[in-house]
């Protein structure tokens, strides 16, 4: 155990004994995400560094405080990357924060989310035990998949101290195409393309235009480009575009008092929600800047078979879509078993837990 890990462990054990709460944080790029909570700050950044990386194994293992920048640079040297494109927002997030938040970027619909890439974790528990789940191999069904359970847990079950994550080779080539169209036309186009063997790695609709990215072998891109049409963006412009969605620096996200993130089945038709709309993930992620009452937005999202997160402007009820009573009860029990005295990020993910 290195000194940083050791001292985090001591803090945790002390908090557990004193029944005081801890607010775990890395580079604080996602302080806005989840409920604002009280608790003594517990900084994970001291426990940093890549522990193991072998490009031919497609796995990187790093400590929780390792920054995205360091990981991305290391991977790039070997022509690899984190395919789920975690958002950096305006900073340089830590691996622990990336996994705990569980947020994925523009490639989500094609390659999967953070949880689809996490192979193993180490978890520092409330009692100060360092547990290891999963591992560094691609396939592993020994024991319950606690590593994936920790993705998006916002630290409520314990401190994620180390992560082994699957990485992928960078696509041989990428082309971004822009096609002016209405939102309805865009959703129809996404529906048409989805069932075809096209190498679409991201699809968005903002400001009256659909922007799609193709990734893969040059031969496949050329053929797909003919089928999809539109105008290719210059490489720099394309990179700027996708980064502006990934990190939410696009003006659409700026200065909004109320912004909703709806995760719905991609085929959901245009929803009756007033206010500006933008879409990502080939229609499966909808951003609605609306003043509609929260209950109404949530009702519409549920009716469509999805959920709504109040990304900005959340009130008393919090950001997240309420859980069903049975699911909530399982959350309550998991919290009780993993963190019996409720010291880890209490209330950040689920009110009261």
């Amino acid at each position, binding site marked *: 155990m290195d000194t940083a890990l050791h001292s985090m462990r001591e803090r945790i054990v002390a908090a557990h004994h004193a029944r005081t709460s801890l607010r775990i944080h890395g580079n604080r790029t996602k302080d806005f995400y989840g409920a604002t909570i009280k608790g003594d700050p517990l900084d994970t950044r001291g426990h940093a560094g890549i522990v193991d990386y072998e490009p*031919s*194994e*497609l*796995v990187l293992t790093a400590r929780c405080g390792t920054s995205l920048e360091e990981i991305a640079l290391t991977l790039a040297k070997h022509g*690899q990357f984190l395919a789920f494109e975690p958002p950096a927002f305006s900073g340089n997030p830590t691996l622990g924060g990336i996994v705990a938040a569980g947020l994925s970027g523009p490639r*989500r619909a094609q390659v*999967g*989310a953070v*949880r*689809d890439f996490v192979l193993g974790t180490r978890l520092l*528990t409330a009692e100060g*035990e*360092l*547990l290891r*789940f999963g*591992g560094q*191999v*691609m*396939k592993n*069904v*020994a*024991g*319950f*998949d*606690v590593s*994936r*359970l920790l*993705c*998006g847990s916002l630290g409520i*079950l314990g401190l994620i101290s180390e992560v082994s994550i699957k990485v992928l*080779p*960078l696509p041989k080539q990428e082309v971004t195409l822009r096609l002016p169209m209405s939102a309805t036309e865009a959703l129809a186009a996404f*529906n048409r393309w*989805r*069932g*075809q*063997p*096209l190498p679409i790695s991201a699809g968005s609709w903002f400001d009256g235009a659909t922007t799609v990215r193709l990734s893969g*072998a040059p*031969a*496949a891109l*050329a053929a797909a480009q003919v089928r999809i049409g539109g105008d290719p963006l210059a490489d720099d412009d394309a990179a700027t575009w996708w980064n502006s969605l990934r990190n939410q620096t696009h003006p659409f996200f700026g200065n909004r008092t109320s912004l909703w993130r709806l*995760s719905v*089945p991609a*085929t959901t038709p245009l929803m009756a929600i007033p206010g500006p709309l933008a879409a990502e993930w080939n229609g*499966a*992620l909808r951003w609605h800047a609306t003043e509609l009452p929260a209950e109404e937005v949530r009702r519409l999202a549920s009716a469509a*078979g*999805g*959920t709504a997160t109040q990304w900005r402007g959340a009130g008393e009820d919090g950001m*997240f*879509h309420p*859980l069903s009573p*049975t*699911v909530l009860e*399982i959350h309550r029990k*998991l919290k009780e*078993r*993993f963190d019996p005295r409720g010291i880890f990020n209490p209330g950040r*993910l689920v009110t009261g837990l």
Partner: protein
Amino acid sequence: MQDAPRKPTADSLRFEANPGTRWSDLTQPATLDHRQTLICALQAVLPADCILEREEERRPYECDGLSSHTQLPMLVVLPRTEEQVRAVLTTCHALDVPVVARGAGTGLSGGAMPHASGVVLSLARLNGILKIDPEACTARVQPGVRNLAVSEAAAPFGLYYAPDPSSQIACSIGGNVAENSGGVHCLKYGLTVHNVLGIRGFTIMGELLELGGGALDSPGLDLLAVTIGSEGLLVVVTEATLKLVPKPELAQVVMASFDDTGKAGDAVAAIIAAGIIPAGLEMMDRKATVAVEPFVKAGYDLTAEAILLAESDGTPAEVAAEIADIERVLRASGATTIKVSQSEAERLRFWSGRKNAFPAAGRISPDYYCMDGTIPRKTLGRMLRAIGDMETRFGLRCMNVFHAGDGNLHPLILFDANAPGEMDRANEFGAEILELCVKLGGTITGEHGVGVEKINSMCVQFSTAERNAFFAVKSAFDETGLLNPGKAIPTLARCAEYGKLHVHQGQIPHPDLPRF
């Protein structure tokens, strides 16, 4: 460890810190009284033809694909509807009766092995494909649907379900979800966990759980991820929403021969290092090719120490380019001959041997024992040499097939259960392979599950605190421990027992392994 109570008592439903303990003995019989009470209660909620009482009706359910482990269940039920499944669960829960869900019974770790005082809940009759949505590229299916049937139903839309276990003509989606099953195309398209968008099911208390669904993200903890691969211990799945993917225009497979298994292993790493993710990347050693060739006539090079099969899919131009890349890497890695499939028929023929390796083992040997460890790819050569040594030491043959791209090994240990001592030697051989997997940084099961078979090896891979964390997950879903008890997670007592057996001269096996 306490004994299983013969009659339900008020006490029996209280929370147990370790829900694995009470029912962990699968052979513990129920009393006749208890059985009769249960039958009466089930008759009230199920039609008569859904309950199998007679011994000859129950006999076929005594084991799954791990036929060395048998146990006659107290009762078998075959509900037709989701409502009946719920009723079975609430009834068993109320009467404190263990429940073992069962799909097609092809599992290879004894996950569906019955409990002597329990009910086998077969989902075989819930076999409807509820909806194929070609626009959303999803299929909503019942758990008893066969894996291959999903792809068949999706085919008219140019879609298919990617995870393709070799058992896909028989195994059920419910079983796939419970085992997080994989297939030869998982390297590129992912395992079951990457291809299931949502499930619907019931807890042992009969409470409805809907996890995930048609949307990509869900709020709260990712309970969907933890139920996939949970071996029927957390929830009985009654419906699943699956992701379908567009059929590639073309698929071709490269078959390469190597005069050394180590070189073949290195070639696998070299392909990945070159930035290529083939649609499938499989390896067979000579013992395996020699065993399958007479049955499938795939045209394998029987002089090669190992052959690799690497598949490429996509548009014709894409495939041509990737095949050229793969060939180049294989040659540089020392392949002695390389063949590329020139037609769909030939592609399927190349694969047929790999897909029929298990049945072939069954034909050349009275019995075989299939292992399922995963190791880092780079240790493949080391593992193969170690298995070679073990063959000599245990006096048994072992043929090797691998999901090489994923580092997932299926050594098939050949033995004759009627020859004195061979079965025990095969078991020890297997356990030693698994211990080496853990030592090399891998795991004791890649896709077949722990079940009853590998429960002792779990003591090697996980510490007591880690196993307690698994019990914490278990009890959050099932406080009573009634759902598939005695499987997957060993109790402390069991590990203590196993530890005693395996301590040689005061030494635990592999003392160099980190133990927290």
